[in-house]
């Protein structure tokens, strides 16, 4: 399946995410999930980014929290806004879940 996942927590409290499998997996970091894209805790990038997936960060939420594209810890993270998110949901994946 082509699965999209929206992560909105700065610290995940469950391990469902790590176990999820999909033929195509996209992860959208939104809300406080954006911290995975910009914060290195004690120098380490978030384990969330270890997942084999396409990564996106929601621009509106990134900037609302005081960060910009210059702060992204990994070049593989693409920015997406609400407009782009609609296409990810409607056209590019079978299912989209909010973890």
């Amino acid at each position, binding site marked *: *399946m082509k*699965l999209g996942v929206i992560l909105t927590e700065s610290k995940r*409290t469950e391990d469902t995410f790590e*176990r999820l499998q999909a033929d195509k997996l996209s992860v959208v970091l939104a809300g406080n999930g954006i911290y995975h894209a910009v914060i290195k805790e004690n120098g380490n990038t978030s384990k969330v980014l270890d997942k084999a997936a396409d990564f996106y960060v929601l621009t509106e939420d990134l900037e609302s929290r005081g960060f910009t594209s210059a702060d992204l810890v990994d070049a593989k993270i693409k920015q997406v806004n609400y407009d782009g998110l609609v296409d990810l949901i409607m056209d590019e994946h079978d299912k989209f*879940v*909010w*973890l």
Partner: protein
Amino acid sequence: MAEAKELKQLFVVQRPPYKSENPKLALTHALASQTAEIYLDDGETVLPTIAFVGDGVLNALNNQKSMDHYGISSNENHVQMTLLIDLRVLVCKEDLEARGIDAGRLADGSALGADMSIEVVPFSEIQKEMEAADQLLFF
């Protein structure tokens, strides 16, 4: 004659009971599938399955005394009612074991007269259900 069409929904419950209303809403929404037909065309049905994973497995324990202490129906009771209307309820085996919870501690549908029982299954089984489902709702 309309074509019979069954839409499969998988409700994945990943959070512990009571802190948030979410796990209970998963169960009440599943129960509501019984009457969804009034909004659907002839022959169309929705069939939810519930899967408890992570801390969500804690919703499925028996002996919950929330009615005695807080006057609130327990999530155990809702699991039983879900079984009573013949919906499948899956509990992740690895997550139960990681928490040291014996399967004998799980809610018992037969106490309400249900034919169905909770199915304790490996996560791989739940992964398959996610793939098979037409729609996926994480609570």
